[in-house]
């Protein structure tokens, strides 16, 4: 199984001002890394999910996500936005954005990884470390430690 996240999937300085834009920026990284086949199709799936219920949660977090036929590997894209981007959370814009991409027919072990990741997001210490991370490599290392315990 490929790495959940690599340095090229991290953007610590997102410039987009709305959720469509930052989601697309991160999705492009996934496409660039060969994790997503059809970028437009994947974005459409993300929009469909987002339309059901915004994915922002309190504490400045946005987690655009979708199970999509256009995704080849379960993948996490991570971005940080200085100014914040509205993801529909009631307490304000999101500064940490996690783009979670799951393949349509993914096996259980893939999805278990994503479930473990989602659980870690609820830990304040993890969020703080991600806010403090100085470069893409340390984000990748943090995720690996937290999710896989290695």
């Amino acid at each position, binding site marked *: 199984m490929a790495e959940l996240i690599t340095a090229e999937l991290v953007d610590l300085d997102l410039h987009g001002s709305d959720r469509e834009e930052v989601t697309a920026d991160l999705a492009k990284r996934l496409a660039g890394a060969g994790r997503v086949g059809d970028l437009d199709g994947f974005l459409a799936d993300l929009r469909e*999910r987002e339309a059901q219920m915004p*994915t922002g*949660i*309190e504490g400045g977090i946005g987690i655009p996500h979708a*199970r999509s036929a256009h995704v080849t590997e379960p993948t996490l894209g991570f971005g940080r936005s200085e100014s914040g981007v509205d993801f529909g959370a*009631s307490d304000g814009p999101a500064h940490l954005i996690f783009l*979670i991409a799951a393949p*349509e027919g993914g096996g259980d072990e893939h999805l278990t990884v*994503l*479930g473990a990741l989602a659980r870690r997001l609820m830990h304040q210490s993890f969020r703080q470390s991600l806010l403090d991370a100085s470069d893409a490599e340390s984000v990748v290392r943090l995720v690996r430690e937290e999710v896989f315990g290695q």
Partner: protein
Amino acid sequence: MKFVAVTACPTGIAHTYMAAEALEQAATAAGHEIAVETQGSAGSAPLGADDIAAADAVVFAADVDVRDRERFADKPQVTAGVKAAINDAAALIEQATTAVRSGVAPAEAGREAGTHAGTEAESAGVPESAPSAAEPERAVEAHTGAGTRVRQWLMTGVSYMIPFVAAGGILIAIAFLIGGAEIAAVVDGGDFRGVHYDGISDPSDLLGEAGIAGVLFKVGSTAFDMLVPVLSGFIAFGMADRPGIAPGIVGGLLASAIGAGFLGGLVSGLLAGFVVMGLKRIRVPRGVAGVMPVVVIPLVACFVVGLLMLVVVGEPIAAAQSGMTDWLAGLSGGTAWLLGGLLGLMMAFDTGGPVNKVAYTFGIAALASGDTVIMAAVMAAGMTPPLGLALATVVRGRLFTRAERDAGKAAWLLGLSFITEGAIPFAAADPLRVIPSLMAGSATTGALVVAFGATSPAPHGGIWVLGLVGSPLLYLVAVAAGMVVTCGCLVAAKSFLGRRERPARRDDPAGAPVHGLVGARQG
């Protein structure tokens, strides 16, 4: 205290697990024990029977229906959306504690707490198998206003019905292709172009007497016979869980029997759901509680729903049908294209229901008396609805759910084959906007066919009997025009009517601006 919880969200890869983690953290922080079942995509490890037995209360943090909710029937319940758990799990744990302490009866505890959290989830859980894209669309959002809830219930029924529409419709279309349009008469009996067929009563004679086309037609029409019962049964299932299925299906079968069509199925499904929801509220001693969902509730609900369908719904429908038939006969001398338009309206109103049937029968009667124009108008107007919907799913796919877009693909073939039922999944899910759009398109087609003077000596077969149609090109123009009108009306209605974003509010922790993709007006 000891709690159990179930978390579930639409995609099943993020919120389900975040809510579980948040609840575990909050419970532990408050000095309680909790076991959480995550009904997500990665499969869920069901809660152990010991955990459930030992629990003082249960917390549902779910935006989709909770599977196997009956396991918790005798516990105080707190119900909220996943976001309420993620954003403020401590409050839910607090509510669960209060519910236990106050000793409120289970049903009320759940309701009070749910309302308190601003996320009243009236819809009882729907047991589902593991969610995946191949699964029928599930009711999204287990809270908010009555309009949204009704739409969720309807969508649940529709999503289980779509496979029957697609499989049955395509089988019938293929049967027409292979066996010609007379195959319906050969199998079911009736007249086709002056020849009388007795029909085939013994299924084992089908292959010998009607060939493979007859078999295809029989299988397809059997699937079609299930449309209304399945729609009705699974609407009730979406509302009231497993005990809703039996009364829902029985009600749906009766809706078919009294010729009430899919609108009758909507009525019987909702009726069955409400009756079962009401029966579930009745407090019974624990000893009896075990047989309630299996015996008592289905028994009482089947009887009540059946009685209402036969007596209260059935008789007025029969009376209205004969009234409409007389009325149509009286109009025969009037302006011909107006009559065509009127028949179009009727064909599209309930696609296979009583009004549609009156119009179709009128066409058959006209055919028998030698008027082939009226038959052409009726058939063309019956082809338009699925075609217009199929076109709309292509032109504006984002206005439709994935299940609807899939149904749209089959709808092309169904429309071309004059299988108006292809429109039912759309009409049942969002009747207020879909049905008027269908009527506008079919009225256009019906009026145009009469104005053009196109004729059809065949009572069914759609595009496959085009060789028999008089003025076939103009006939196709009429169908295409109606299709475009339906598509245009529907896109406009879905874009501008009743879909409104609502900003998330602080007091609405699970605040969800847009509820699904075919949203009826909120609350």
